[in-house]
């Protein structure tokens, strides 16, 4: 009896057993046996990108919009090095990815062979774990472990490097349920994990006079149920809540408790509330420097509760009073039952005073901008996009820069998993391939990449992919001919010397779309904007909408680097302390 199949067949069989429906990839010499096997089957769809960097961002977009693991298949050498940015991005933003790379045959490893590189060496710091599989009989167990590790605990990217001879070799396949993964390789909280800490935390919340919930991407990674529970708990407490860039959508924008996003370009009221609160409940966020600002002036008078699945996030930058290690869903579920069992109720008088104070801060109307004239303000463009798409199932992706912040400020998210942006790494070029991945996962939904003119050019080659697979992705370019955020920093911190931040020789985006047999639209004035957006939504094809916006608009409010939450800049006219500006200059 011979049950042996080839390594390449084991790869496909493992993917199928893991429930993989789609693989984003690009073929090459060292993965030809896998592509040959792919050709002979129908259960797994392959999306051919135009550069490997596009494949991994597409897989990220797919993963974050569906909650499944994104799968990438690329060749050795340049194929592998081109995914490094995406792996790092997925590592920073905790996105479950399994990336398969081909490797030169084992007898050539170390000989500087054609398209050879030390893939596991290069990707070690930017993956959660990686493997070089030398034995075909270990291939299936490596795959099943890789999928588990990618999803388990704090999710992340896992890479599997497979030499070409292993893909050709024959071996036996082992099923998923036959693989036992030793517990030390996984994060497995016990059911009554941290119960004492949770009780301590809930008691602290019940005694708060000025509480605030600070919600991060961990709530989204914990699944949709986590968001429901978080909303339920916040409602029971009646506390205000603010979200990080990665946490938008966990609590709906229209929720009465929501103060919107916090941080460098967050809402004035959210940052002020963080500064003055007496109990801070951090759920699945990691005190990122874009959120905290100046560390020694961060929320100076609060007791801090921190719920995180990754212990290394506890006391990394901010020391907390009650750390709780665990999955958001489980922890918040327990918090709710403790709150109910003990019949806790927050002091309503102090809570009312707290809300009064917050409502005063809201009156500052920090997102206010001057919307006069025929020229389109970028903020206005996002506002109109929101108004015209809010009743459709819409996924928004972004690139990185000013447009990203305006999208976060002006597009209102009501549900988790609808907002895909590169938060930790800040990868320009993320949004368009991520939109492709999201569209593959949700063929009937509206997927819009809010982009800048500079960012979109970083992965513009994926137009070809979008058109090939009839993916009606919409690219909404806020075109100011600048790398807007670089220009803004140069204006505020570098004496207005716009060194290399003007994008000369931009393509004609309408013609560019047409050259790919997609649709190109353009709006130059406010009169044209609504028509262009409506037309964009109604077009059953890939669309580039080139929105000409005012060129020198700045993104406000802003906490300058090196400043604290209560030192927000609301507009350019606001005088800034020269000394702190000088200090801020050295930061990123």
């Amino acid at each position, binding site marked *: 009896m011979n049950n042996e199949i080839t390594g390449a067949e084991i790869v496909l069989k493992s993917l199928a057993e893991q429930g993989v429906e789609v693989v984003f990839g690009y073929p090459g010499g060292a993965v030809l046996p896998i592509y040959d096997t792919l050709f002979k089957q129908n259960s797994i769809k392959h999306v051919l990108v135009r550069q490997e960097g596009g494949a991994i961002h597409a897989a990220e977009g797919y993963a974050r919009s569906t909650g499944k693991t994104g799968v990438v298949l690329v060749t050795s050498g340049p194929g592998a090095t081109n995914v490094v940015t995406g792996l790092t991005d997925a590592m920073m933003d905790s996105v479950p990815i399994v990336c398969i790379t081909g490797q030169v045959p084992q007898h050539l490893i170390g000989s500087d062979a054609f398209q050879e590189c030390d893939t*596991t*060496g290069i990707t*070690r*710091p930017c993956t*959660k*774990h*990686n493997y*070089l599989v030398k034995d075909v009989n270990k291939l299936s167990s490596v795959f099943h472990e890789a999928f588990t*590790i990618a999803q388990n605990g704090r999710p992340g990217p896992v890479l599997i490097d497979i030499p070409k001879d292993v893909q050709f070799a024959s071996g036996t396949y082992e099923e998923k349920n036959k693989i036992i993964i*030793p517990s*030390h*390789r996984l994060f497995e909280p016990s059911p009554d994990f941290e119960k004492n800490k949770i009780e301590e935390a809930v008691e602290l919340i019940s005694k708060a006079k000025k509480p605030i919930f600070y919600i991060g991407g961990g709530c989204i990674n914990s699944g949709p149920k986590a968001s429901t529970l978080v909303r339920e708990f916040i409602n029971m407490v009646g506390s205000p809540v603010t979200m990080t860039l990665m946490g938008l959508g966990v609590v709906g924008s229209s929720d009465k408790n929501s103060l919107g996003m916090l941080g460098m370009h967050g809402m004035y009221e959210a940052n002020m509330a963080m500064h003055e609160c007496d109990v801070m409940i951090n759920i699945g966020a990691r005190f990122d*420097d874009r959120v*905290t*600002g*100046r*560390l*020694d002036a961060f929320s100076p008078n609060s007791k801090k509760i921190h719920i995180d699945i*990754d*212990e*290394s996030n*506890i*006391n*990394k930058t901010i020391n907390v009073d009650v750390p709780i290690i665990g999955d958001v869903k489980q922890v918040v579920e327990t918090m709710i039952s403790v709150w109910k069992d003990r019949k806790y109720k927050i002091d309503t008088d102090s809570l009312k005073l707290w809300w009064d104070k917050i409502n005063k801060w809201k009156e500052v109307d920090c997102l206010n901008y001057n919307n006069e004239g025929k020229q389109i303000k970028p903020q206005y463009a996002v506002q109109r996009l929101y108004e015209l798409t809010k009743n459709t199932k819409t996924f928004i992706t972004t690139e990185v820069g000013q447009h990203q912040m305006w999208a976060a400020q002006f597009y209102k998210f009501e549900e988790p998993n609808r907002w895909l942006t590169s938060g930790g790494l800040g990868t320009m070029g993320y949004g368009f391939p991520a939109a492709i991945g999201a569209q593959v996962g949700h063929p009937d939904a509206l997927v819009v990449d809010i982009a800048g003119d500079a960012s979109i050019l970083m992965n513009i080659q994926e137009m070809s992919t979008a058109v090939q697979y009839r993916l009606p992705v919409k690219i909404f370019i806020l075109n100011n001919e600048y790398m807007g955020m670089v220009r803004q920093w140069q204006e505020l911190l570098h004496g207005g010397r716009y060194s290399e931040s003007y994008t000369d020789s931009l393509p004609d985006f309408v013609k560019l779309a047409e050259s790919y047999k997609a649709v190109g639209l353009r709006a130059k004035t406010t009169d044209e904007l609504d028509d262009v957006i409506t037309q964009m939504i109604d077009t059953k094809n890939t669309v580039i909408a080139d929105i000409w916006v005012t060129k020198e608009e700045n993104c406000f409010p802003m906490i300058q*680097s*090196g400043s604290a939450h209560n030192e927000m800049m609301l507009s350019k006219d606001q005088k800034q302390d020269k*000394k*702190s500006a000088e*200090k*801020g200059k*050295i*930061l990123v």
Partner: protein
Amino acid sequence: MNKSVYASPDQVSETKRHILTVLVDNEPGVLARVIGMFSGRGYNIDSLNVAEVSNDENISRITIVTHGTSEVVSQIEKQLLRIVPVHSVTNLDQEGNSVEAEVALVYIYISDTNKKKVYQLCDLYRARKIENENNTTIFEIAGASERVNRFIKEINEITKVEIVRSGPVAISSIQKNEEE
């Protein structure tokens, strides 16, 4: 006072030497993962020692001597635990009682004038002469790093030497359950 996010945090506790012992799966790349975590995050390795300790389970023990504030060392421990093949991380200084030792091999240039002094010193420190084919004088000294340091300092004052040191290994001296 206007301190930036990237300024080094106030030194809330003093920098101390710590010995971490890390149990890992003995698989390719595991040492690189551990070392890479230190270099990538800007931590220090003063010495590092690795060897397989169990034949059946394929587990290695890495002993790392590092220094830092207690905040930094606690962060190091947590970052180590994130590495998939890492079983456990023990900070032996936190355990309180531990025994450490290292081995140094010392090639000693001996002449008639210093011979007596060298042998006296080696005797004092219980450094053992290692017989070898070329009949050169190579001594082996084992013990706590402090002791080895002192020996090397004193022998250096007498004559020229070449030294190779293993770096310390350490083990907790607290009584353990059988299963550990």
